[in-house]
């Protein structure tokens, strides 16, 4: 089954996934969504890693899900068809017990298109179930141009990765294996060197 797979080493921190996510969860489904009320917000959160590199943080849809076990009103549930953990906006009481339980820090609390008007609820990634039911792939994956977010069978992603590692080990000198970027490595090295200095 295809799922969103995150390849954090590829993330360049452009935050396009955040824009796309917010738009996908808006009324208009266009950039005009910034004028909507409530203003749609992203469910994927690009934070900074230790060297200020991008890190796309999204719900892992854990099984069992700690947030689901912690939810006081029983508002968090799982739909097995898409292996997705969802929050029922009507049941949610905005108690933040899920945020206390989530080891990845993916929950946010705000008004939402799907919630009763004026009600603040817990919001997180829904795997774009609405888009998927229309045969579309999740919005964050669709806009990611560096392959940091892919929609594929995790097993085959694993196989591909193993292949890439093997290739990079056996690659003939001078040839550049796919998925490796001298540019990104150079930038990362420079930023890391800069960070090291403030860590003294």
């Amino acid at each position, binding site marked *: 089954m295809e799922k969103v797979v995150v390849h954090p080493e*590829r*993330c*360049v*921190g*452009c*935050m396009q996934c955040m824009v796309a996510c917010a738009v996908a969860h808006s009324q208009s489904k266009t950039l005009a969504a910034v004028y909507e009320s409530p203003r749609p917000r992203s469910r994927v959160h*690009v*934070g*900074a*890693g230790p060297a*200020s*590199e*991008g*890190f796309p943080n999204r719900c892992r849809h854990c099984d069992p899900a700690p947030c689901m076990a912690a939810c006081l009103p029983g508002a968090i549930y799982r739909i097995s068809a898409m292996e997705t953990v969802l929050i029922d906006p009507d049941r949610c009481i905005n108690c933040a017990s899920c945020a206390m339980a989530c080891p990845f820090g993916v929950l946010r609390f705000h008004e939402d298109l799907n919630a009763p008007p004026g009600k603040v609820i817990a919001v997180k990634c829904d795997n774009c179930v609405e888009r998927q039911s229309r045969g579309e792939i999740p919005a964050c994956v669709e806009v990611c*141009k*560096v*392959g940091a977010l892919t929609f594929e069978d995790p097993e085959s992603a694993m196989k591909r990765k193993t292949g890439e590692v093997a290739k990079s080990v056996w690659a003939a000198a001078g040839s*550049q294996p*796919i*998925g*490796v*970027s*001298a*540019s*990104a490595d*150079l*930038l990362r090295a*420079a*930023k890391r*060197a*800069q960070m*090291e*200095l*403030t*860590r003294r």
Partner: protein
Amino acid sequence: MIGTSKRFESQTITKDGQLVLAKAERDQIETAWDRLKAQQPQCGYCEMGLSCTNCNMGPCRIDPFGEGPQKGVCGADADIIVARNLCRGIAAGAASHSDHGRDLVEVLAKVAEGKAGGYSIKSPEKLRRVAAEYGIDVNGKSDAVIAGELADAMQEDYGTRKSCVTLASRAPEKRREVWKKLGITPRGIDRETSEMMHRTHMGVDNNWLSLLLQGMRNALADGWGGSMIATEVSDILFGIPQPVKTWVNLGVLKEDHVNIIVHGHNPVVSETIVAACQAPDLIKLAEEKGAKGINLSGVCCTGGELTMRHGIPMAGNHLMTELALVTGAVEAMIVDYQCIMPSIGPIGGCYHTKMISTSDKAKFPGMEHREFHPENAHQMAYDLVKDAVENFSNRDPERVYIPVEKQETYSGFSVEAVLGALGGSAEPLIDAIKAGKIRGAVGIVGCNNPKVLHDHGNSGLTRRLIAKDILVVDTGCVGVSNAKAGLKVPEAAELAGPGLKEICQALGIPPVLHFGSCVDNVRILVLVSALANALGCDISDLPVAGSAPEWYSEKALTIGTYFVASGVSVHLGPMPAVAGSMNVVKLLTEGLNDAAGATFSVEPDPEKAAKLISSHIENKRKALGLDYRDIS
């Protein structure tokens, strides 16, 4: 609070900075460091120079990992996009300096017409010298007439009617040959910027190499054109700097005085403030308000201009501009343009500080706009200082915090002053270099950048270079970093290597010489040209280098580029947005050596950078047949 000091120590090495950052946190003031944090992660496409917003078929970006898009809608690849972006940055930097120069030429023209209020020619000697370089017959003419003709001639340099900007003639013959060969002789100040913008329009220059060559020509038009005019005309109007003792850091603010800070770049406004602060009736008014006097200080380069010519103390550099306001001790901050963070208006608003913008080209949120023109400038300045004095009664003593004692420092080392100190010629300096007592010279220039531990890059590198017997000259924000670190007093010779120490002690000078503001980087060009001419070699043969350890500004890109195009290799602390094209990276770091005899290098760590630079200098010494050391 526990852990607090450690956190501020990871932001700035300066004591005043650390202490006032703590106050800023208590006062709930947001600083550039806070905003940088909020911006993390910054966009990797943009950091690598791989995004393009030049046209509306875009915006486009290139996947550095090779799987996603490799070309923009127009078909531009990573090399073209990176080169275009870099060149547009250079053009912006050149435009900034050169437009600053233009404002000075306009004052010079107004002085000639007798319409410039309180402005006058402070250095007729330099007026005549520079006019002669422009081929103006100065014999028997009044200062006003010469000023008029010079202003005209300089304005010509801005246009398109020349084959080469006039002051490029100061460059050694060999260097001008290199430019000719590469086709990068700068023809007109505005012309090169204009052409750069033209070439980076979609569908014009799509050869990354020729784009970069135009970038170099654009930078040269600034270095040997706009910036050089800015410095020379400033000297003519306000005097040639001479060595002067002054003070630096937030300790220059006085608890019992009316404190006024000037911020920005152009001395045209700040010079009038200097005059107004000396008006006896305003000083008397200050006393009536309970202050002991009026205390003027500067931040950023307009401060540097005043320090160079009047010994006006400097309160801080770029990253200290917000913190200076957080002292709560500033009655007015008067800004002109460039490097003025739009954050400071609202910060001033959190205290009693009057925030005043003065230039028709630079307006800011939370500031009162009072437009200065040459005709009214002195009256405007008088009124403004008066308002600042009256604002003293609004100061809340409870919120005032001046964290440290001021640090002594020396400034005012114009090329004329340096040659004067050497007895009229560069010969003694050349002898010291030949004898190996001074291994070489490095111009450390540029900015602060919250990505870099504040002042650590600047003064850290300086400290290490002087210890290796390398003479350092500094400008811009680096000038303040080094002054605060105590590296610009004669006693700092003790921190220098034995050879440099001996020379400094003999001449009674510090091992680090303040050359002025960021347009004053051209003083370095003039000095290295003089050295090369004296040795009969090209600039690129000299044991010299440039460095911008904490650069942030587009102007710094331009300076770095005109240094390299002039034959001075340049070290950068932070990485410019070029990593997206390995072709561009290789050209800048290696390829340019063959073409221009100089390259760029990037090294954030001052320790490693010092090694890199010192090794470069020793290699140049070796090539000149001088004694050299193995640096490894």
